[in-house]
């Protein structure tokens, strides 16, 4: 029963054309990043690779290109679409009046919200995988399927290579999984604001505002020692699975915090929604 209802919620979400705006934009953006990687990125990193005795050929691998496509696009561009979809999910139905028909059914408000929240989370995670899969597909078409993975992330102090393709693939897959979980925080923010009595656009803008304020504060040099306190820093911890020695304790700590934050946002959103009057 719950699964049928969840399927119905997903049907609603994916039947809307605007849900696909993000997919289309990302396809174009991935093509752009791939071209820039091939034309500019590889040459710039070649020197860095040589200095660190890293075989330059690894820069021409499809997995390395996929990594750069995901890193470059998901955090900032992806957050916009997650906030848009999540900000819409409750507020749009309240605004359009669909919610009255839904609430006239013998179903609790908690269940309605749970269905919507799960639908948004599924959208978020599948979107991240969509970007990964399409990015990898494009990279394979452009440079073939061979090669390992070169990872460089100066903010998180990571410089490493995985010459073995299966190892590289496994690491990148794990990274994509955690990235998907990280991005659920943006969706949770959008969902949280969507539960209040406000326009869908306002809910999305509020979610993005919180996300970007956190991101800006996190990058202020004199706040560097407080990085752990920022959501966006915790979200970026997915990249640690690409480190040669994975710091699991750190990853678990960060994702426990993000999980707690998501639950808190859901509960607060539900409390607001539960107390609202939906007048006909």
């Amino acid at each position, binding site marked *: 029963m719950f699964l049928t209802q969840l399927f119905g919620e997903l*049907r609603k979400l994916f039947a809307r054309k605007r849900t696909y705006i993000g997919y289309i934009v990302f396809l174009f953006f991935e093509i752009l990043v791939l071209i820039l990687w091939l034309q500019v990125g590889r040459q710039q990193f070649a020197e860095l690779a040589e200095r660190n005795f890293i075989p330059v050929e690894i820069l021409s691998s499809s997995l390395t290109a996929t990594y750069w496509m995901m890193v470059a696009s998901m955090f900032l561009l992806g957050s916009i679409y997650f906030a848009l979809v999540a900000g819409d999910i409750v507020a749009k139905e309240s605004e*359009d009046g669909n919610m009255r028909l839904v609430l006239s*059914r013998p179903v609790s408000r908690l269940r309605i919200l749970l269905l919507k929240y799960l639908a948004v989370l599924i959208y978020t995670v599948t979107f991240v995988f969509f970007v990964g899969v399409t990015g990898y597909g494009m990279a394979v078409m452009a440079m073939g399927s061979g090669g390992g993975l070169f990872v460089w992330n100066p903010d998180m102090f990571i410089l490493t290579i995985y010459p073995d393709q299966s190892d590289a693939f496994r690491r990148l897959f794990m990274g994509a999984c955690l990235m998907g979980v990280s991005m659920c925080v943006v969706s949770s923010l959008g969902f949280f604001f969507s539960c209040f009595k406000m326009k869908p656009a306002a809910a999305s803008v509020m979610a993005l505002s919180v996300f970007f304020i956190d991101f800006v504060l996190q990058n202020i040099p004199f706040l560097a020692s407080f990085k752990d306190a920022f959501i966006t820093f915790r979200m970026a911890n997915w990249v640690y699975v690409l480190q040669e020695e994975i710091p699991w304790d750190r990853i678990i700590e960060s994702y426990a915090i993000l999980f707690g934050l998501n639950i808190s946002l859901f509960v607060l959103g539900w409390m607001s929604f539960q107390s609202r009057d939906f007048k006909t």
Partner: protein
Amino acid sequence: MLHVNHLRKKFAGKDALKDVSFSVERGEIHGLLGHNGAGKSTTLGIILGMVAADSGEVTIDGISVQKSPRKALRKVGAIFESPAFYDYMSGWQNLRVLVGLSGPFDKKAAAQVVERVGLTQRIHSKVGAYSHGMRQRLALAQALLPEPEILLLDEPTDGLDPEGIKWFRDFILDLRKERGMTVLFNSHLLSEVEQMCDKVSIIQAGELVYQGAVNDLRDDRTGVRIEAHPAETLDAVITHHGGERGQDGRCLFPEGTRIQQIVTELVQAGAEVSEVTPVRRSLEDVYLEHSSLTQ
């Protein structure tokens, strides 16, 4: 079937409902009548659990909406004015999603209801392309799935053309006839209430100002328009029979008054009678009477 007990509700400190109580018996079509903003929709919202009452309780078939909303709403189907569906989905998909919230979606039952409301040809078209009348038919279909025992209709005929209104009225009356369906019909269209309902509750500024049978309202007194000369003779005869004369020339007499007797007396008194027209006291008259009394 439906009992509304002492509902009170304030919005931003202003009274929206002041101790509203009424009951709807099984198989009855009950009109909830009032001006815009009188409190009808708030009452309906509380019945459906969408609005939290400050005090009071609603029970549907003995189950409290406030205490067990899911259980109580299992017996309810609802239609709202300008029903908002998911325009980007087909009528059928809308039914699947909405009805799926109540329980398993029975395709066969849904197809029968769709046929009954006359939407079979267009059920797989996107709702965005539906006319207002078609949306209202779809609303009716979703309200009837899965089989409710009581229908709550919130100004369902607003915006429909005369043909659509008639179709809707006949449909509801047929439902009552076939299934003994209980209906609470929320409207400001007096003629609709008069033609459909057995009982009526009139709400004015959040207060229930009248509750009773529609027929009682219409037939409790005999109305007749009389033109006779001289007017003094006419007034004397009216007063003699305990009647009263309105400004519009219409006279109201106590129940059982025989009009022939009045005319005979007028003629015998030498009056020249030029018009005698029976006038039925409409629901509108009663509604306006009660409204003006409250105001």
